[in-house]
């Protein structure tokens, strides 16, 4: 059996998200070094704020300002920071109840080591140098000593002050970049298919039950739900079973429009695969046209298919594959 293939796969996307009135006020506030919460119907202050009471589901819009100082309610020491996390040096994850708030905010605490962190310790916000209206405008928290030089323990029961939530040039959306790295392995059947392509051959797999040859093979017959294993070489010639004419030029794609994209049943295959048709005017492509693959140097799959010059296939020969 050929070696199972693998390749890096990066999934990266800049998610653009719009903000509601409460989230907009909160994130704009962070840009202006102001921490806002929201007061629920029963008088609790939620920080970070949400638009609906998590208990009653009531809409809540009553913004208040809380202190940039607070108390750690729980923590965890991360000695090996991961990509994207707030600090590159060892730090503590903390839930912090800011003075004036009844709920806690998740963030990072910059501390020299785990022995310097405990539940109940007093901390304050360290603002990021450059702020754009995002949770990362809080760079992290840091231990907070009061005027006596002691790290204070219990927070003064600060009163949250009402706040209009209005700022100049409010932030109405965020762009949240996300990137995940994978190593993709296509498994046994598709590895064999790709390996054969490197020799300019196309292999499918025959279902032991219904005898159809699947190409590209995925290791299972979708009709019978059984494993396929018997490799069968198909093509290289095939028949156009159906097609469409593409009139929109794709970005970064060096193909002149209009062009034809077709389903092609390779000889011996039990279902059609797709490919572009070239070497013939687009308006002369037809069902039943006999075609063969055209390879370009260094390519990992056929660039396109062109007419073989044979007579067209009978409709009955491919109607099952439409």
């Amino acid at each position, binding site marked *: 059996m050929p070696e*199972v293939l*693998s390749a890096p*796969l990066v*999934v990266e996307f800049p*998610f653009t*998200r719009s*903000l509601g009135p409460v*989230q907009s006020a909160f*994130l704009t506030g962070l840009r202006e070094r102001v921490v806002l919460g929201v007061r629920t119907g029963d008088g609790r202050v939620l*920080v*970070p704020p*949400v638009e609906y009471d*998590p208990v009653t589901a009531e809409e809540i819009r009553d913004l208040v300002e809380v202190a940039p100082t607070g108390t750690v*309610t*729980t*923590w*965890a*020491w*991360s*000695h090996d920071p*991961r*990509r*994207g*996390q*707030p600090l590159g040096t060892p730090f503590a*994850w903390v*839930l912090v*109840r800011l003075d004036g708030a009844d*709920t*806690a*905010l*998740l963030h*990072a605490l910059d501390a020299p080591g*785990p022995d310097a962190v405990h*539940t109940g310790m007093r901390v304050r916000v360290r603002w990021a140098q450059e702020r754009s209206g*995002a*949770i*990362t405008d809080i760079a992290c928290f840091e231990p907070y000593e009061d005027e006596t030089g002691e790290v204070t323990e219990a927070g003064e029961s600060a009163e949250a002050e009402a706040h209009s939530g209005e700022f100049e040039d409010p932030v109405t959306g*965020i762009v*949240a970049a*996300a990137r*995940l*790295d*994978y190593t*993709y*392995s*296509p*498994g*046994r*059947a*598709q590895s064999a298919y790709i390996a054969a392509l490197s020799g300019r051959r196309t292999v499918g797999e025959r279902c032991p039950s219904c005898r159809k040859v699947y190409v590209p093979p*995925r*290791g*299972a*017959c*979708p*009709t019978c*739900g*059984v*494993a396929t294993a018997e490799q069968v070489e198909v093509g290289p010639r095939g028949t156009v079973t159906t097609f469409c004419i593409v009139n929109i030029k794709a970005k970064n794609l060096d193909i002149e429009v209009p062009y034809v994209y077709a389903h092609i049943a390779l000889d011996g295959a039990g279902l059609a695969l797709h490919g572009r048709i070239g070497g013939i005017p687009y308006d002369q492509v037809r069902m039943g046209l006999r075609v063969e693959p055209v390879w370009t140097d260094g390519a990992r799959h056929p660039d396109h298919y062109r007419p073989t010059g044979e007579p067209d296939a009978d409709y009955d020969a491919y109607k099952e594959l439409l």
Partner: protein
Amino acid sequence: MTRDIAVVAFAQTDHRRTSDELSEVEMLMPVLHEVLGETGLKAADIGFTCSGSSDYLAGRAFSFTLALDGVGAWPPISESHVEMDGAWALYEAWTKLLTGDADTALVYAYGKSSPGSVRDVLSRQLDPYYVAPLWPDSVALAALQAQALIDAGDTDEPALAAVGARSRAAAADNPHAQLRGPVPRGDYLVRPLRTGDCPPVGDGAAAVILAAGERARDLCARPAWIRGLDHRIEAHALGVRDLTDSPSTRLAAERAGAFERPVDTAELHAPFASQEVVLRKALRLDDGVRVNPSGGALAANPVMAAGLVRIGEAAARIHRGESDRALAHATSGPCLQQNLVAVLEGDPR
């Protein structure tokens, strides 16, 4: 109309650190064939099919549609999918059977964590405005919960280590488990959690068949009747919740009838040792209950299948006559955000 519905067959893969040589459908197919074989059913006989998996684990959109090849989806079948643990797919299938629209259901779930970094992947299910931009990983969030439990006096580090040790000792009898027998406590992964307090990262799949009424008796000598099934959710924001408790689990258990009579077995989906502490308290399990005889998620944690495996393991003990009334629990989301409880019973002997 009330119908009795039972789990009549269960199969799972051997859970392994990597399964590069297999595509998802290649990994899944043997367990599908195994449950069908146990019942003598063919794919075409199944009334409803439902699956659980996550595109984020695979890194590919609509990855679950390819897995359908393993089911035999032609001619067209009645099928559905949840982007969650397969336990929730089982909930959907149970509901479908309750309506009388189908008499049998195939439920399957699979997850390959090996292609990516599951700690980072799971961070993408967090609040995208306030939390996800900080990239807190799943172990860090569990560690915050563990520290809260330690501060509350509900556990300590040796007690957490004992949960891990007990789980992996139990898994010595489970040929499918990924971690078995003595496993070192290891170093801190995110303090206070050590590697031994955390689940192994691995790939795996599971499948069960549900059947209603007499059909269940035809297909299985001792069906595991689902007496109750409920799932509940609590606030997404960790700072709003009391991390030392799980009111959603307690409510789900109450609605599933778990507190009406004692259970003898509990399969708890607690990927972190500290979460077992929370669940035992929420479910009022005393020392008379056999907790996670399979080894639980600390012995094998195929993400998206581990919850379905809990229901399957509980049912299999009833099938084998090793349990008469068992509780199965599944979780999803950070720090036990969402919880499902099933109560299963065998016929009186």
